[in-house]
């Protein structure tokens, strides 16, 4: 969430200096104001939400009567409204597709007539470094402000919700401060070339989601079943070091060293292994730094090659060198390495799950929970939780089992002596392994009298509650702490 807030600041703090603006009325049929109410979930008090706030951006009307915005504009929304520029006409909108990794979302007005008369804009050509474009903004009166922009770079970079990267345009543009600037379109010749997702008014530089990403997103969402961007499921290292090349018996030039291969990922299921030198993907040769030669962008990171170009389900072809022997392997692009994990990364629009037993609050570990600890979450959050999240692959956590942990203890007579405990990973309850909150609920629900024995990965190892007390005092506990429900599964 912090990343999103920063974006909000960047985009709304632009100052009206030196904007080479031009106004025009004939292009009004392509943009709408998008107003959203956002209310994030409170990970530390999973039964409630945080205070709401509003965002407003500028959405791009596509010819099919859909509105394209960044996903961060609608993350954890409670309401989305569209408003015509130059009039007060409003309409609520619903979400048709969203991809938090790619930071894109597609909205559909609930009133099919609302966008009647809007021509919509088509997708423009792919831009490269040095190209010029415009960033469009809406004036309060509905007039269009067109700011000259220059593409500084086109390469793989970070997206707000993703540690890996996708193609990103670096954009230089001087944006005046206007409302509705949380999302802004990057245009060229009246066609959509990108969506601005961050802007720093000091350097007057920003980043934009480029049109190939938008094309991928729209194509994927066209059939109503959104699959998302594929991923290889590997960690890799550059192979510039001649000594390392010799050690891994790499050919004279090119290729990268795979330092970890997730067995369930695209690469792993195609047969690639740790220690292999990956020489080419789908016929594109990789250099020692992991770049392929893109016909438009020049040397570009493998990230674009394997994540944006293919779709889930496309076939993949790899050329590798294993112990000095070159071989070809084939597979199918998918994103299981990203989706099938024990501890998911960021989650939006999903209420955190929890189960309260006699004052012990259990939650399932997610990246979103850890991020709640702030910018320095990896230092401030309980170290065991950080470890299980960050090193889950090398620890070979079973992706089918979730990490259930005691997040806090609500003091009561039942939990006397336990109040100070938090951040403890639960392994068993009454001797049975726990791999989800549902597991825990069904174990606990089956016991109506006697002990409930919780076993944890770390000190103090074991806690005990009286099952009948847990049952009988649940309502009272919820009442005294104002918790509407003792579980959300």
């Amino acid at each position: 969430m912090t990343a999103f807030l920063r974006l909000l600041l960047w985009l709304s703090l632009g100052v009206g200096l030196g904007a080479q603006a031009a106004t025009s009325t004939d292009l009004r049929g392509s943009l709408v104001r998008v107003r959203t109410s956002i209310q994030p979930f409170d990970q530390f008090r999973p039964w409630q939400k945080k205070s709401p706030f509003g965002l407003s951006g500028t959405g791009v009307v596509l010819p099919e009567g859909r509105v394209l915005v960044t996903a961060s504009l609608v993350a954890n929304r409670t309401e989305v409204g569209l408003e015509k520029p130059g009039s007060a006409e409003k309409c609520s909108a619903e979400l048709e597709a969203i991809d938090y990794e790619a930071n894109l979302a597609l909205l559909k007005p609930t009133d099919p007539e609302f966008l009647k008369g809007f021509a919509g804009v088509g997708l423009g050509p792919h831009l490269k470094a040095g190209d010029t474009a415009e960033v469009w903004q809406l004036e309060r009166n509905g007039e269009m402000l067109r700011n000259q922009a220059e593409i500084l770079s086109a390469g793989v970079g970070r997206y707000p919700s993703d540690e890996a990267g996708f193609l990103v345009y670096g954009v230089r543009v001087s944006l005046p401060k206007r409302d509705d600037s949380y999302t802004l379109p990057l245009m060229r010749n009246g066609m959509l070339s990108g969506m601005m997702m961050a802007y720093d008014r000091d350097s007057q530089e920003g980043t934009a989601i480029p049109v190939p990403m938008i094309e991928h997103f729209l194509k994927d969402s066209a059939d109503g079943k959104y699959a998302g961007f594929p991923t290889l499921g590997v960690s890799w290292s550059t192979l510039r070091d001649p000594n390392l090349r010799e050690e891994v018996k790499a050919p004279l030039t090119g290729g990268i060293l795979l330092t970890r291969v997730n067995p369930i990922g695209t690469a792993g299921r195609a047969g690639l292994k740790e220690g292999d030198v990956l020489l080419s993907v789908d016929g594109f040769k990789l250099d020692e730094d992991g770049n392929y030669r893109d016909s438009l962008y020049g040397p570009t990171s493998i990230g674009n090659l394997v994540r944006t170009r293919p779709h889930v389900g496309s076939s993949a072809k790899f050329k590798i060198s294993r112990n000095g022997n070159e071989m070809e392997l084939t597979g199918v692009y998918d994103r299981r390495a990203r989706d099938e994990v024990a501890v998911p990364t960021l989650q939006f629009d999903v209420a955190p799950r929890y189960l309260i037993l006699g004052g012990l609050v259990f939650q399932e570990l997610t990246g979103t929970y850890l991020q709640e600890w702030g910018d320095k979450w990896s230092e401030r959050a309980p170290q065991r939780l950080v470890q299980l999240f960050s090193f889950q692959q090398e620890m070979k956590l079973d992706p089918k089992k979730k990490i259930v942990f005691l997040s806090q203890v609500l003091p009561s007579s039942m939990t006397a002596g336990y109040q100070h405990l938090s951040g403890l990973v639960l392994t068993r309850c009454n001797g049975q392994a726990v791999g989800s909150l549902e597991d825990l609920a069904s174990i606990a629900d089956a016991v109506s009298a006697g002990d409930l024995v919780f076993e944890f990965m770390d000190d103090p190892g074991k806690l005990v509650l009286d099952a009948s007390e847990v049952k009988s005092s649940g309502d009272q506990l919820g009442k005294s702490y104002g918790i509407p429900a003792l579980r959300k599964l």
Partner: protein
Amino acid sequence: MSLGRKVLSVWLLGGLLGGCGQDGQLTEAKKNVVMVEVTSQTWDYRLPWNPGTVSSARGAGFVISGKRILTNAHVISGARYITVQREADPRKYPAKVKFVAHDCDLAMVEVEDKEFFKGTTALSLGDIPQLESVVSVYGFPIGGDRLSVTRGVVSRIDYNAYTHSGRESHLAIQIDAAINPGNSGGPVIQADKVVGVAFQGFRGDVAQNVGYMIPTPVIRRFLQDVKDGTYDHYVDIAIRWMTLENPAMRKYLGRPNDGLGVVVTDIFSEGSSDGILQKGDVLLSIDGHPIESDGSVRLQGQPVQLEEIVERKFAGDPVALEVWRKHKLEKATLKLRPAEMFSMYEVLYEPPPRYVLYGGLVFQPLTTNLMGVLAGSADLRLRQTYSLFGQDQIYRETPEPVILASVLPDPLNVYLRGLAGQVVREINGTRIRTLADVEPALREGGERTVIRFEGDQRPAVLKKAEVDQAMPRIMAQYGISDASRTEVIGRRLAKGSYSRTETK
């Protein structure tokens, strides 16, 4: 066992200012208080081969029987030159450190010139003062050059972190006297007897009128310990326990609701209790003192934490425990020993930093000092190796994790600089468990040396012939006279419980 609170700071005065008044009545103390001026050297863990930076500071001390001078360990740590001076004698006498106990922040200093002791009467040690009773603090704090005396009352008697060691907690007495940098090592007096040594306090922006002194049980233990000519470390029961206040937990363990007993939740292997206590044991008494369910015992009528019983003992001393195990009462006796596995969390003062230099790659053992200099840049794996070293008993497999602490740039290692900060797993196929493993492992293997790290990092590969050629160049360039320093001085590492006969 807990890490030191960083807001507590030790009171050492680094600069000198002018003029101050004096108190004429408290002559007995005045005769025996000494100013300790120290020039010390602090090792630089970034450049472990360098002798370190020199600085001067001032503290206090006092004369006890046998012409011995007591002060704080932090006053004299890293000392290269010490002088002591009495209020009644303008001469400065050179002094030497006789014993130092960094774990309880005490040190003994001796002066060869017997002239120095002329007119001293030696202060004797008192007991733990009563709460609210008045004490006087003697020292040479900021604000002047001559002896300063302040008064305050005893505010609290409790276990507290001793920040100098970085990890130890012992009994400490909180007083509200105005004590400041330069008071360190000075006596705290009540009825002409020493009741404590002033040693640490909070920074002014954190809390006011909160000062701490080392009480006499800790001082007496130190004096007892050094009788055999060496100072040994404190001993530790090396367990974790939890209070036993929860009724359901008590019932599960089969204990009546009598408010007694704590439950053992973790036992550190290689520690005093290893093989004797078990997880889930309920400790009912220690050396005959009943243990309350909050972990306290009564000592001379005062409630203190059960560790206080162990605190006053020495290596090899027995501790008798009454243990409720699996619904049966048992008796257990353990023999106390120092907890070497926690030495990772000790700040090191005297011993020079250890390292191995290889082709510009600087290998250092993981220490609190190294973490101190890497602090901001340390990556997650390194931080976790450090913070989970005790908790996860990493020391069993790796008594001393070795870190590629830095890479000194040279044409040889141009592709390896990004690997600084990684935890070394193996070199030329040999698992690295302590720094001592590094040099022999580097000599093994073929024409290339392969260094592998924890996690999914690429290995570092170097050609042995090229390294041999580059070493004189690198050492000359960076002013390094020794390619390694691996001897462990004044410190014991965890033994580790991995199989010693394993094949590579």
